[in-house]
């Protein structure tokens, strides 16, 4: 079983290769997800297009409080980036919590998002931060809010002729707090059974002026917990209110049974960990 390996140096050259080989082509950056699927025999492309030599897909920049991370930046580089830590320490912790150092040294942000496994760590945190991805094709460039990128298990709204080039995180309103919690009942490097990312900021009177909650492992895609958010928006978040809001998580999620827990167990854990995340943010 072999494939031809291509290493274009520009996005345009990568798109040309994609146009030439179509469904027989597969993009890789760190190739962590690809290698597993390939070794399992589930992917057999004739052409693999490596993206790591494309300088335009790398780099982390911050300007005006916003953050932009290139698609081929590794998890480890994000975890160690001063720009990322300055933007949001919880984002640093999210990337530091992924799998193991060996995986983080190899796996890239763009690969993580394009792979669209619903149990991955970065997507819920990036959704809670209001991030969007930039996708390029021969027809031009568009941005996709992260909560519209994921459409199903391993499936994104990226078109077959597009390449994910970067992720943009908007400037956060002053006083925004953020956290990412993952429930790992098995091993420290496992995918989470459920994970919860949340951002919250207070108004001057200590009411909730803005809140976003997103979960991993709770359905076919990472999910926004809009019912929970609605229950807290404008409210004084005392412990009772937080518990009531977290209890609404049932309406927002659609977990299924797998090796990390039954659907019913994940529903319980989603409520518990959402409550913990929100409690941490208001304390």
């Amino acid at each position, binding site marked *: 079983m072999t494939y031809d390996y291509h290493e274009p140096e520009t996005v345009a050259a990568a798109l040309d290769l994609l146009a030439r080989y179509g469904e027989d082509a597969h993009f890789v950056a760190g190739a962590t997800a690809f290698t597993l*699927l390939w070794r399992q*025999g*589930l*992917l057999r492309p004739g052409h693999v297009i490596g993206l790591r030599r494309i300088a335009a897909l790398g780099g982390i920049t911050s300007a005006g409080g916003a953050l932009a991370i290139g698609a081929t930046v590794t998890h480890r580089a994000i975890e160690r980036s001063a720009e990322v830590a300055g933007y949001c320490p919880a984002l640093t912790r999210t990337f530091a919590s992924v799998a193991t150092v060996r995986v983080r040294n190899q796996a890239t942000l763009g690969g993580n998002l394009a792979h669209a496994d619903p149990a991955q760590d970065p997507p819920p945190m990036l959704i809670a931060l209001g991030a969007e991805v930039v996708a390029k094709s021969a027809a031009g460039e568009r941005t996709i809010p992260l909560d519209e990128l994921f459409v*199903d*298990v391993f*499936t994104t709204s990226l078109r077959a002729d597009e390449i994910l080039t970067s992720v943009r995180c908007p400037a956060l309103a002053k006083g925004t707090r953020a956290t990412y919690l993952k429930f790992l009942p098995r091993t420290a490097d496992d995918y989470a059974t459920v994970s919860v990312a949340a951002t919250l900021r207070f108004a001057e009177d200590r009411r909730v002026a803005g809140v976003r909650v997103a979960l991993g492992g709770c359905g076919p895609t990472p999910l926004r917990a809009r019912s929970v958010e609605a229950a807290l928006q404008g409210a004084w978040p005392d412990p009772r209110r937080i518990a009531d809001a977290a209890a609404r998580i049932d309406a927002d999620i659609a977990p*299924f*049974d*797998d090796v990390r827990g039954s659907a019913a167990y994940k529903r319980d854990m989603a409520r518990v960990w959402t409550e913990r995340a929100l409690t941490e943010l208001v304390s």
Partner: protein
Amino acid sequence: MKLSHTALVRAPRARVWKLVTDVPAAARCVPGVAAVTPSGTGKYKGSLLVQLGPVRLVLDGDVALTATDEAAGKASVRADAKDSRLGGTVRATMDLALVDRGEDTELRITSDVQIAGRIGEFGQPVIQRKADQLMTQFAECLARTLA
């Protein structure tokens, strides 16, 4: 793996029966099915394309109507398919039951699916979900065809 699906088709039972027991016509309602051709009495050859994220399965195989009982509104279908490129086989026995619901018909499909080889790497949750989507789209297409 046992799967069970129920769908309401907005058409009377006799018309639904005629469509679901006409294998080539019913197959046109399964998303991803390419040509279905007869290969003997009640037997057909066909091909089903299933996309699971980046993975494309092309299942080539045989479909046979193994039992029909129009009075009871029950039929059984057996499908035997393999993906020769990735390696893997799918065997399914599906029992269909049509139940009168006034103007509408309830379609119940109970399937026993055996998956062997690499396709099985996906695990039951993902396969179950894909089967749910196929069945939902199948029932919607039946309703549209009969409308």
